[in-house]
């Protein structure tokens, strides 16, 4: 292939930029030495060759291998450490020059370069500052978003923190929205989804890179990891983060601690119908449990399974956000506009009530009604538990 490229006269090659680019791409994609090391079961051959390359002063090559290596061997301490050290050693001498360039010309690209090098020397604070400066100077340029996304991705990879994963996803999504063909950003998004256990979503970002960089070892590794994962069965990103945080199935342990939907429905439906029916402007009231089952409905109209899953997701997200943001346990969510009132109210340990109406002036009536309903739930639950306890004691007595 190299021979074919050099057979084209130089002048022609320079004039036909596209052909030249194609030749360069093909040659680059064909040369991926070391990819076979990433197919090995263990990380030792990769570590050995990377160390040899570093000793021989071929840190660029070693870094390509190690960057693919951390995807191939996630959580492998030695690979992560060698990658970190190699990046740091390569970045340190370049940082001074990048700072000088930035002083000469303040641009998003130059800020992003300093951010990237600062991140590699593990100075996340400076890296974040320069990434934000890049966004502030040129909010329509992808450089700053990429730089910050990379900081969060590194952390997400290291500690699996949901917050870092969410931030990585947001920044790389923004970067891809501004530059949809940027291979590194697409790969980063694919990696976030692989880490979230979502192969279908990851494949959507891998496909365009697989086309443009078919022999990139990172593409091959991420594709392999996708094939090892079961399908996520949802396209909802928030759902993926909740699963990542709480594990699957969604809070079923919580559901066991309370009266289940099967035991209450008709009574509860009658109760909420009576309580909320008196409030003018009510369009619908639905109660869902922790397993996202409809427990009771004031309206004759029953939401479809997808809509119901959405209500459950709102409840789970609000509970998770309140706790994580340090404001304590979630109690109520109020959404208000001139002609709309939506209230989502916690009812006991795991149930949540949703009110939809068109009269915001009835807010306090709805809130008070939910409070009464929550109290009545508590009493029901207590009565049910006492009854259950009595039954079990009776059963135990009968056996002995």
């Amino acid at each position, binding site marked *: 292939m190299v021979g074919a490229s050099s057979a084209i006269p130089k002048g022609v090659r320079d004039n036909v930029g596209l052909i030249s680019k194609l030749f360069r791409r093909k040659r680059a994609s064909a040369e991926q030495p070391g990819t076979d090391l990433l197919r090995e079961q263990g990380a030792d051959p990769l570590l050995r060759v990377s160390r040899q390359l570093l000793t021989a002063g071929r840190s660029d090559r070693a870094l390509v291998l190690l960057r693919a290596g951390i995807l191939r061997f996630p959580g492998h301490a030695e690979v992560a450490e060698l990658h970190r050290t190699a990046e740091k050693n390569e970045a340190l001498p370049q940082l001074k020059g990048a700072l000088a360039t930035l002083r000469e010309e303040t641009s998003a690209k130059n800020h992003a370069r300093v951010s990237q090098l600062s991140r590699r020397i593990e100075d996340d604070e400076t890296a974040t500052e320069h990434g934000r400066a890049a966004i502030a100077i040129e909010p329509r340029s992808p450089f700053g978003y990429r730089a910050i996304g990379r900081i969060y991705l590194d952390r997400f990879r290291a500690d699996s923190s949901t917050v870092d994963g969410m931030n990585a996803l947001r920044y790389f999504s923004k970067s891809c929205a501004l530059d949809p063909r940027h291979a590194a950003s697409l790969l980063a998004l694919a990696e976030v989804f692989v880490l979230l256990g979502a192969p279908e979503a990851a494949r959507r970002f891998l496909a365009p890179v697989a086309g443009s960089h078919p022999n990139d070892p990172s593409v091959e590794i991420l594709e392999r990891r996708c094939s090892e994962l079961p399908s996520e069965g949802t396209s909802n990103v928030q759902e993926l983060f909740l699963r990542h945080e709480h594990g699957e199935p969604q809070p079923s342990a919580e559901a066991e601690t309370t009266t289940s939907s099967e035991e209450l429905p008709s009574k509860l439906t009658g109760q909420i119908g009576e309580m909320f029916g008196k409030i003018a402007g009510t369009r619908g009231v639905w109660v869902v449990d922790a397993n996202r089952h409809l427990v009771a409905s004031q309206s004759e109209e029953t939401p479809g399974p997808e809509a119901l899953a*959405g209500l459950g997701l709102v409840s789970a997200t609000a509970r998770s956000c309140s706790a994580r943001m340090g404001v304590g346990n979630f109690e109520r969510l109020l959404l208000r506009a001139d002609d709309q009132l939506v209230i989502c109210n916690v009812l006991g340990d795991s149930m949540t009530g949703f009110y939809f109406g068109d009269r915001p002036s009835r807010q306090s009536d709805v809130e008070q009604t939910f409070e009464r309903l929550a109290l009545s739930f508590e009493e029901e639950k207590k009565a049910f538990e006492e009854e259950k306890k009595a039954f079990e004691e009776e059963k135990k007595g009968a056996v002995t």
Partner: protein
Amino acid sequence: MALNQVPCVQGSMVITDDGIMVAAALGDGLDEDTVAALSSSLVMTLKRSLKPFCEEIPDEIVLTASEGKLVFLGLGPAYLVAVTKKNLKLESDLVEIRSIARKIRHKCEFSV
């Protein structure tokens, strides 16, 4: 008046619709990354999940929890997020927050 001087307000932040933090002035104990990520995640979930029930999601959202409140006010393509103490009065303090949100919206030319 600065938003963080409103009684009960512990910190505030502006995030874009797609979850990118524009500005933040959060008090002690509040982490920028966490508030930005979770706020945008909550707003996005509400927008997506409540769509079958409301044509348009209201611009004013208040989350009440056992130890505080989170107020989200729409600024066009962004949201003002205020983290407040539990005793924030919706009828009085929220009026001040709304007025500041309007000023921010105007100043940043966020008006739709």
